């Protein structure tokens, strides 16, 4: 069974983020770049499935040159090879365009399963798994908290606001994994060394049959009119508990008409 894991390089989710005033795109230099945390679960899940079912795990990313670091990280965890869609004109692409590019790239690969994190910690839209499934015409199995493959059937437990749904479909399929589905492994020293020798293929727009005007800021179907940093919240009153802390909060809540 061949698996492609889509990963994204994002600013560290434990750091403050900001937009660039010039074009309202993410200021990627303002924080350390890391693999999107949710995608680490996707890589781990793919490697676990590979241990049982064999086949190859390919890492696919779209992003600037620097995003190759994220492919390398996934390869050091144990994936077999990488595909990097890189083209200066892709900068600023929205989710609709990103999903179109990824779908085209997936069209050049052999896969039974596409796995990705359910959202990126920068844009936080959580729409790309659904858009990819729509574009590929493949079953969508998203917000998965478990993934099992049995022959040509894939089954997940989908987390919803109503509870858990068990959903199954025939391969090939697109799986979006939820946080905490597994415990992602750390790359071993051996893994890091081995990753340096694993193949990473670069794909440009022309390789995907796309043109520059279909992608990037200009080709996107949505655009930012303006962005403004909000003034930070003003700190209010802080008191020390002298045995009446609860009563003081009650007084405050009453003054604000909450009780």
């Amino acid at each position, binding site marked *: 069974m061949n698996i492609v894991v889509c990963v994204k390089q994002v600013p560290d989710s434990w750091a403050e*983020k*900001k*937009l660039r005033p010039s074009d309202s795109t993410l200021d990627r230099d303002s924080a350390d770049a890391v693999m999107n945390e949710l995608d680490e679960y996707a890589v781990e899940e793919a490697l676990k499935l590979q241990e049982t079912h064999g086949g190859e795990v390919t890492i696919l990313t779209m992003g600037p040159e620097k995003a190759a670091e994220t492919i390398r990280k996934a390869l050091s965890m144990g994936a077999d090879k990488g595909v990097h869609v890189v083209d200066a004109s892709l900068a600023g692409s929205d989710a*609709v365009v990103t*999903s179109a590019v990824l779908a085209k790239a997936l069209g050049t690969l052999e896969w039974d399963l596409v796995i990705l994190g359910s959202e990126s910690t920068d844009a*936080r*839209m*959580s*729409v790309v*798994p*659904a*858009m990819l499934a*729509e574009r590929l015409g*493949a*079953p*969508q199995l*998203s*917000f998965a908290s478990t993934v099992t493959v049995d022959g040509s059937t894939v*089954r997940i437990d*989908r*987390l*919803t*606001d*109503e*509870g858990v*749904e*068990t*959903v*199954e*479909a025939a391969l090939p399929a697109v799986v979006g994994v939820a*946080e*905490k589905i597994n415990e992602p492994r750390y790359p071993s020293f051996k893994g890091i060394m081995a990753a340096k020798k694993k193949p990473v293929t670069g794909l440009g727009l022309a390789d995907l049959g796309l043109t520059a005007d279909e992608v990037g800021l200009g080709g*996107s*179907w*949505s*655009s930012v*009119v*303006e*962005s*403004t*940093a*909000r003034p*930070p*919240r003003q*700190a*209010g009153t*802080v*008191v*020390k*508990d002298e045995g009446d*802390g*609860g*009563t003081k*909060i*009650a007084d*405050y*809540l009453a003054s*604000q008409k*909450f*009780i």
Partner: protein
Amino acid sequence: MAEILVLVDHSDGTVKKVTSELLTLARRLGEPSAVFIGSGFDTAKDALARYGAARVYVAEGDQYTAAPVVPKAEVLAHLIGDVSPAAVLVGSTPEGKEVAARAAVRAGSGILTDAIDVGPDLVAEQSVFGGSTLVRSTVSRGTPVVTVRPNSIAPEESLGAAERVDVQIELSAAATAARVVGRKPAERTGRPELAEASVVVSGGRGVGGPEGFAPVEQLADALGAAVGASRAATDAGWYPHQFQVGQTGKTVSPQLYVAAGISGAIQHRAGMQTSKTIVVVNKDPEAPIFEIADFGVVGDLHQVLPQLTEEITKRKG
């Protein structure tokens, strides 16, 4: 007047609060038409009329709920093509965003998610990076599909006709390619849903263990609130992961947020700092969460919370 489609979020016809918020918003943009998919329209009808739905497109039948997301997206995309609305509004819930995403791609439309408001010019306002940045965005192609975060718009009643218009579509093979083969409903806590709640009480590392959530839950119940947890608490296994508030996890924006034993790392603040009023209880006076508190008490939550709960119960008489 321009027609605005609102996808109804409901559970067997019981309409969720976010739908009344979206209908209220839709009335400012044009004439609201609700889109009801699934079963239980008779239950839902009054609630939709009360918030001003002039028309309700009804796609009733088991085929629309046999698979997650896709059948709803196909109904919505069909309506976008059929009635050419000025915009489509969907609740910014995990499933709502997926339905909107697929409908947008299918209909050839741009999509904006997590809006907190939409102006008459269909410019959406979004609050990103945990509320530190405000963004105004538009859709530049097709019919704007906008998902709106629950609790962003104050619902206002205004009677509409809620005239029923039946919709039947031929679902694609893809729509039923994934089948729901089992359902396990979430344990009923009797508390409001986290994303929709107007009051949230959350516990973090400072609660000290799973049993430490008891005073958090008791305070929540006294306030009619939902219970949340920080990443530290869910990582430790003290509280279920679906209640996690933060950068990864749920984003909430209630009228009142009570953070107990939470230090306030950016991971957590990103999910709650747009709350209208923030009350903090923490032993550590240096905890960064105090920087965003409207009212804070430096103290042990195991003393402060029970006293607060007792006071609230007493004052409510």
